[in-house]
């Protein structure tokens, strides 16, 4: 199946995330080079590539941590980032399609989260000195309705109670409810990863971005994680876009895979297609072109 057929085969599923010629250049380093990704509703899509390929950078651009140098990001029907090379970047820019994207759209990460994108981090970023429970509770804040005075005087008791209940529920889904009062930074690595996912879910996302969720896990834990990701996807009706190095996990769980190398997209397809793709094999084995 080619990409065209794939897309045509899903006429009625909405495109959740689309990146158009997305480019991120730091000084002279092109970390992401013309990335064109489409993620449909309900899919699990993986982004793979060797170390330093620009995967995390792509996530950072999608979530608003960086403003792209050139290109556009759409979430559902909305443009959440659009930029073209400007200022000093005009001279430095190495691409050839500068000037195609006329609008400037810059949203801070919190705004993008409010639109329904949540993420985890490659180097776990929990609120370390706070409890496991508080980590999840805090993430509910983004959907809080009460203003600061109402919240301070405890006039949103129902809302507060709901937040507590939902947090506890999320913790039991990820199997951490018995550790709710522990300091999150003291949890073992694998549990911290689960907690980060629970925290991301608390923002009530539609699209979940996972940056190497299986990093540091043993094969058994990785298998558990695979089942877990499928479970939360169904339970919360999520679309998942993930970066992962564990090939078993990637091949076992993904509907489609994008491969990038040196920032450039080198392949796209189903796991079977990707495994047979000579470009991918070359990139992973490090053979010179």
């Amino acid at each position, binding site marked *: 199946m080619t990409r065209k057929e794939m897309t045509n085969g899903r006429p009625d599923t909405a495109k959740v995330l689309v990146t158009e010629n997305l480019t991120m250049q730091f000084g002279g380093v092109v970390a992401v080079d013309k990335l064109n990704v489409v993620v449909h509703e309900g899919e699990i899509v993986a982004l793979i590539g060797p170390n330093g390929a620009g995967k995390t950078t792509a996530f950072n651009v999608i979530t608003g941590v960086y403003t792209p140098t050139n290109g556009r990001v759409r979430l559902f029907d909305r443009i959440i980032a659009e930029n073209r090379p400007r200022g000093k970047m005009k001279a430095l820019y190495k691409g050839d399609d500068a000037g195609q994207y006329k609008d400037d759209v810059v949203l801070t990460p919190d*705004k993008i989260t409010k639109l329904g994108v949540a993420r985890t981090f490659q180097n776990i970023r929990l609120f370390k000195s706070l409890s496991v429970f508080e980590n999840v509770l805090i993430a509910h804040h983004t959907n809080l309705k009460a203003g600061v005075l109402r919240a301070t*005087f405890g006039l949103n008791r129902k809302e507060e109670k709901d937040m507590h209940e939902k947090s506890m529920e999320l913790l039991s889904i990820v199997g951490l409810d018995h550790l709710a009062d522990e300091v999150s930074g003291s949890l073992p690595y694998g549990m911290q990863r689960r907690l980060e996912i629970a925290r991301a879910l608390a923002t009530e996302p539609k699209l979940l971005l996972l940056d190497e969720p299986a990093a540091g896990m043993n094969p058994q834990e990785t298998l558990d994680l695979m089942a877990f990701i499928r479970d939360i996807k169904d339970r919360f009706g999520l679309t998942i876009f993930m970066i992962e190095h564990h090939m078993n996990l990637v091949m076992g769980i993904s509907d489609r895979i994008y491969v990038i190398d040196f920032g450039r997209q080198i392949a796209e397809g189903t796991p079977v297609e990707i495994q047979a793709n000579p470009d991918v094999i070359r990139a992973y084995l490090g053979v010179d072109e």
Partner: protein
Amino acid sequence: MKKNFPASVRLTLSLIAAVGVFFLLFWLEGQRTEQGMLISILQKSVILSIAAVSMNLLTGFTGLFSLGQAGFMAIGAYVTGLIAMPVSSVDNVFYVSGMADGLRSFKESLSVLPTPLLITLALLAGGLIAAIFAALVGIPVLRLKSDYLAIATLGFSEIVRAIIAAPQLDRITNGSYGLKAIPGFDSGGGRGSLLIPFGVAVACITFIVLLIRSSYGRAFKAIREDEIAAEAMGIGLFKHKQLAFIISSFFTAISGGLLAMFMRSIDARAFQVTLTYDILLIVVIGGIGSITGSIVGAFLVTFAKEWWLRFFDQPLVINGFKVPLLRTGFRMVVFSIFLMLIVLFYRKGLMGNREFSWYRLLSWPARIGRRKKSLPSGDEEALK
């Protein structure tokens, strides 16, 4: 779970303590002639505790290191002083260049209000104006990284002081002559010299505690812990920093207004950087991230500085032998040594980031023994 007594026990203990403190203060006020020194130190302590808790809201709970305290206190003090000062004293105070006509007629229209209401309004107005300044200053300043934020707010504080003392504002701030005849806490006639500042402090600190426990307070802590993660969880950095900054400045200015009422006459020199350092000191000694610590610290530092160590400033002659070192200013040397000791032995301040709990207080004697036993293992940990 942390060990604690059941809620009913805690509530009863707290009520008993509150009633006890209330009657103690009430009784003390009756002893004004004998206990004048104690009363004024208590007043100053409780006033500084508001400023310290406000600073802790920023530094300890939001992770914003701001050094603008003296500036916001000055705004609070001047606004409160100007509004609360009786119209009849205006000519005496502004004897050099007189008061601006607009301000004077504004004060005349306010003079129909009874004194307690006027003072309440004066304090609130100080807080609000400081909050507006905080909102404006916050726009550029809160986007800065921590160290730069400290320097920028310090600069703001000095600018406020310079503007207050500027001759161009003589008809409003009375320039370098300062404000006088500001009504004190007992101006209502009744007992208020302790109950008013303590009452205001309880209200302010309760608000801050409730804020910290609310969802917004949790968002502040998230920003303190990890800005990038907080933002990724949908917490707007600027919005929440701005909120913390405005609220903190509001209460800092209330503290400044109370300070004006405490001092009765103020001028710009009272709001130098040293005032900010005093508050910072209280916060550090008490424990960054502990409200209880800031309150305890305010009392401890003020009592030590103003009273307990006075002894060192008095020359002492025993049998014709003049004890060396004891002279004016030596107190501050002892004070500094005392600070160093606290910082050495309680690296995270007296309270760390813990809060007061009846259980901890009442089980304190028992825990001292246990702590000694567990020390060696703690050392091992430190060596790793």
